[in-house]
């Protein structure tokens, strides 16, 4: 290994805590905020050698165009998942970052925190680990980045005593994700927060003890805006839905037109409807609800004038996933509408999810997501296997792009 400039000199340069990192510095020169700035500030403030080592190692990686992290085995007692291990392959060269494990911590429904719980979390984390936090990773977890293996248990114990729990990893149920829901959003068609909490409590064992074919994700979006991106990222996407007509407040429509003008109404609402279900009428609009595909565009543009219908519930889309193997998939519409108002409704959802997971666990191959199993064995076999009656309202994939089209 060549002795690359700036790496491994243990902070002796220039009387500063950090070593020179010229290539990382380049990332700070662009127009956007850089993670490098954040890392530097945190390292200078906390004087944690592990952070200095990580920056040195990243600089060295950039110079040599190679990554030097490898996985390993770290857990806490009773748990099979939740710690993402990173051991350095060049610990002889850069010993300060010989370990840099991440603890995944489950975030509360809708990402609602109290400031004092966040402060408490930061204090505990800075005591045991680096203090570096990613809110939130694509997994939906709070990612506490940078701790040594022998400090993981004590850190977990203190976090756990304060009400935090590890998130999912590996071939099991992953950390649930929900949008702000009725707490802060007028479009929510069901209580995403309550459902998130109840469902994930049922699956808590499967989060901590992974033993399925592969990962399984649940995400809860309050309306078809799908702020949690559940349709593309979860095996069962729970998306708020209404069955009847969009509610229209005629006075608010008038007020909107008064303020924004007829031109904007035509150009940005009527013409952008993907199914042409909106027409002009009496100086306002009329919606052909039978042809509405719930893209949410008109409701988003005119939030006071238009709101979701009165008969609200959820739609369940299954088989969505991100990259790897067959590639990106949007979920298929398997349950077009289901009421989600009572404890029993949530129980029914849990029973169905259990049924689906059992079927997938029995029929799926190793490293196969639900959508891939359905694609391999067929939709009919899937529906038979989980006991769902095929119906004309189910949609494997839409015939046309159901999203509104805009120019960016």
């Amino acid at each position, binding site marked *: 290994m060549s002795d690359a400039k700036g790496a491994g000199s243990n902070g002796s340069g220039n009387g500063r805590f950090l070593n020179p990192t010229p290539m990382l510095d380049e990332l700070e020169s662009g127009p956007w905020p850089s993670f490098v700035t954040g890392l530097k500030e945190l390292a200078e403030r906390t004087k944690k050698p592990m952070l200095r080592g990580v920056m040195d190692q990243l600089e060295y990686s950039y110079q040599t165009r190679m990554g030097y992290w490898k*996985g*390993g*085995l770290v*857990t806490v*007692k*009773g*748990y*099979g*998942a939740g710690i*993402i291990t990173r051991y350095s392959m060049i610990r002889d060269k850069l010993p300060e970052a010989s370990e840099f494990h991440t603890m995944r911590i489950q975030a509360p429904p809708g990402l609602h925190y109290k400031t004092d719980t966040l402060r408490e979390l930061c204090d505990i984390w800075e005591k045991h680990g680096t203090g570096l936090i990613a809110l939130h990773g694509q997994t939906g977890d709070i990612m506490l980045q940078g701790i040594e293996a022998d400090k993981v248990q004590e850190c977990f114990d203190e976090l756990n005593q304060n009400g935090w729990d590890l998130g999912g*990893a*590996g*071939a*099991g149920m992953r950390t649930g994700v929900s949008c702000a829901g009725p707490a802060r959003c007028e479009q929510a068609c069901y209580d995403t927060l309550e459902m998130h909490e109840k469902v994930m409590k049922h699956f808590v*064992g499967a989060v901590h*003890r*992974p*033993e*399925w*074919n592969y990962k399984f994700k649940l995400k809860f979006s309050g309306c078809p805006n799908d702020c949690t991106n559940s349709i593309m990222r979860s095996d069962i996407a729970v998306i708020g839905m209404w069955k009847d007509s969009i509610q229209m407040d005629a006075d608010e429509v008038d007020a909107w037109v008064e303020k924004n003008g007829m031109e904007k109404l035509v150009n940005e609402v009527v013409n952008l409807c993907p199914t042409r279900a909106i027409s002009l009428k009496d100086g306002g609009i009329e919606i052909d609800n039978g042809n509405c595909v719930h893209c949410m565009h008109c409701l988003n543009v005119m939030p006071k004038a238009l709101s979701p219908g009165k008969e609200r519930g959820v739609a369940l889309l299954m088989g969505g996933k991100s990259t790897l193997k067959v590639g990106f998939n949007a979920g298929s519409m398997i349950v077009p509408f289901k009421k989600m108002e009572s404890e029993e409704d949530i129980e029914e959802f849990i029973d169905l999810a259990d049924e689906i997971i059992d079927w997938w*666990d029995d029929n799926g191959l*190793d490293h196969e997501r639900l959508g891939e199993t359905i694609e391999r064995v067929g939709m009919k076999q899937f529906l038979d296997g989980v006991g769902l009656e095929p119906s004309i309202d189910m949609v494997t994939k839409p015939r046309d792009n159901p999203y509104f089209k805009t120019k960016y």
Partner: protein
Amino acid sequence: MGIEVNGLAIETDDDGYLVNLEDWSKDVADKLAAAEDIDMEEEHWSVVNFLRDYYDDYQIAPAVKVLTKAIAKERGLDKKAASEFLYGLFPSGPALQACKIAGLPKPTGCV
């Protein structure tokens, strides 16, 4: 690193797994289990023996899923109860701890 059993020095890796799988014996298993704070009872042995038989047959450690199902079948439990049973025996997880005690190679993957 290493352990000593019946006067013989046995080599282990950084995480405490046997370097040479043929070094394994019941005494070695007891020693490995002691390092994990596990008192080997009959139920522990049944899991360890299952792992070793499986490894003999397939030259690979079983997926946790396979292990859980086998235990569920053997003991007439449902999968959830079998999983809790396994973690009760091996608190750091059957994949990590039971494989180590059974003298199997270190499991790979992201758990």
